[in-house]
């Protein structure tokens, strides 16, 4: 099912939950709503589910406006962060509840619940109560309950954030595989950018109720449209520093105190002659070299595979990833080489990208 949000707005008095959201989700697509807490992603999801009524704008399912449609008529399945299992019912009754409400005959219900439970690997737990299950199993029951009525749209509200780190990884790939196999259009709300990047076909980044960007993960990563998106997507986050870009002898130089690099003309020309602009570069695009910008190591954080190193250049700080076998220490002087084909430039006033509009 195709889902379309048009100028979707939710306000409670002066409080704005979601501010004219426009986006379109293709049939079978997996879309993540990504943003910090309080950014309006769950509000938007609940409007799609029919729990909240939009203040303004439209929600369309396959061209049909569903603003006033009750949740039960929308044929959506939803998985909650708290799982929201019914504690007084067994696993069977939990998964079967949507079918019971649809008055599906007993035998068919038995079959469908068993099939979904087997698919989720909890077929042997049907007689248990939710309190007798582990977090991961509860999560599967919640997923099973969302899937059993064969919904046309699946909604996930931070479903993995209550699981421990390892389980989160395995459930992540499982949900992704399940979604691809069943081909159900899905919206996945998360504040974890890794989850969004790995699972989604497209990511909608939100902040303060507004849609900041809506693009496939790679595009979001390589061509961030705003400073917020650039800083929010990617781990460790992008480095930012204020520079001035000037043209000298046909080359574009980005300069600040103790820092002077030549940037490619296609990027440099868009930032040149604007006074101070914000230069952004990801940690993996800065490497240690024999010559280049010199700096002093300020902090070393071992991450295991890499060391995350905070290098001070003048009064700016740049995070880079380095080989732990180099045994770098605080206070060491190093030279940095910037992969200038990956630099980003942002307008400090509007925080919009100067490169991608």
């Amino acid at each position, binding site marked *: 099912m195709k889902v379309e949000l048009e100028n979707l707005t939710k306000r409670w008095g002066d409080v704005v939950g979601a501010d004219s959201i426009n986006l379109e989700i293709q049939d079978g697509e997996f879309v993540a709503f990504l943003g910090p807490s309080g950014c309006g992603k769950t509000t938007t999801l*609940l409007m799609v*589910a*029919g*729990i909240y009524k939009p203040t303004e704008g439209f929600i369309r399912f396959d061209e049909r406006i569903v603003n006033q449609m*009750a*949740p*039960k008529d*929308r044929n*959506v*399945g*939803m998985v*909650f*962060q*708290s*799982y*929201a*299992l*019914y*504690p*007084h019912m067994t696993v069977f009754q939990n998964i079967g*509840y*949507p079918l019971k*409400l*649809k008055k599906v005959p007993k035998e068919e219900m038995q079959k469908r619940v068993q099939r979904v439970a087997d698919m989720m690997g909890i077929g042997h737990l049907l007689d248990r109560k*939710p*309190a007798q299950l582990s977090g991961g199993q*509860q999560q599967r029951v919640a997923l099973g*309950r969302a899937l059993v*009525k064969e919904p046309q749209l699946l909604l996930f509200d931070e479903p993995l954030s209550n699981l421990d780190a390892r389980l989160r990884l395995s459930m992540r790939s499982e949900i992704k595989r399940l979604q691809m196999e069943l081909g159900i259009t899905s919206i996945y709300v998360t504040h974890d950018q890794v989850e969004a990047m790995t699972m989604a076909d497209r990511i909608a980044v939100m902040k303060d109720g507004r849609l900041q960007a809506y693009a496939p993960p790679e595009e979001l990563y390589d061509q961030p449209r705003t400073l917020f998106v650039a800083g929010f997507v990617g781990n460790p986050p992008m480095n930012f520093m204020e520079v001035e870009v000037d043209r000298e002898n046909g080359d574009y130089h980005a300069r600040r105190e103790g820092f002077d690099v030549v940037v490619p003309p296609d990027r440099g020309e868009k930032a040149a002659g604007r006074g101070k602009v914000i230069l952004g570069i990801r940690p993996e695009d800065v490497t240690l070299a024999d010559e280049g910008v010199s700096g002093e190591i300020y902090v070393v954080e071992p991450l295991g595979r890499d060391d995350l190193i905070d290098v001070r250049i003048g009064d700016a700080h740049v995070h880079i990833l380095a080989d732990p076998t180099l045994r770098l220490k605080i206070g060491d002087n190093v030279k940095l080489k910037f992969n200038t084909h990956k630099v980003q430039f942002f307008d400090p006033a509007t925080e919009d990208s100067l490169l991608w509009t």
Partner: protein
Amino acid sequence: MATTVGPKGYGVEAGRLYAARRVFNSSIAYILLVISIIPIVIGYAWLIIATFSYRTEGLLPIDADGNVGGWTLRNWAFLNDPAIWHVTLNSLVIALGMVIGVGFVSSLAAYALSRMNFSGRKGFLSLTLILHAFPSVTLLIAIFFVLNFISKLPALGPRFGYNTLGGVALVMISLDLPLGVWLMKGFFDNLSWDMERAALIDGASRFRVWWEIILPQIKPGLAALAIFEFLSGWSAFLIPFTFTVGTRVANLPVYLRQLISDTAPTNWNQVAAVGLFQLIPVLVFFIFTQEMLLSIYSGGAKGGT
């Protein structure tokens, strides 16, 4: 009061001292508690002894000649009177009526007040609280007029009018509703929204959500309210006494009052026996349900996982 300094780091001697002091401190608390409970225990002891004796002097049963002794079952003779069973049944009807009436209305009303948005919600909440602050004595005359009016209505009159059990129950239910509504609202407020949303998305109507998903979560609260209402209905005196005439619709406390005559000498030992008779179901009931009753004060049910 027990000191909060732990025994860690003390020597063996100091540790022993600490233990001794703790025993001393807690024994003081026990002694104070026992002393303060003595008058109540004596009261109950007298009640039980008095029902089986001609007279009592202090806690000693006395026979007709003034000697110690004189045990008798004479005071329990009222059990042979059919009237006592009739008023007991009336008490039961009032108590159960209050359990059902207050339980049903306040769990619905409190759900609406806790979960739904409508104009006048805040005003309604504070108004019920103010109404609860009125002592019911001040309302007696007004309620009399209301019941009198209901008496004249064709179908409702004989059931809920003046001098009917229904009327008494109705008045008592309405006087207890503010308390019930506020209490249940507290339990509903503690439940997370997610479960309710999940049920709505699963396809339930609002009423089914209330009945199948939400009510089972607040069973402890509902049980506590039911017990509370049963006890208050069982021992109700003022309303039944005011709005009933004669023994046809009297309940146990009113029957008890009728034993205390202004003109003839009162057989206090019989009064004690009837009082004990009224107390027995309550005591039994309370022993089995006190845990739930206590949850009224402990903040309510924990919903979900």
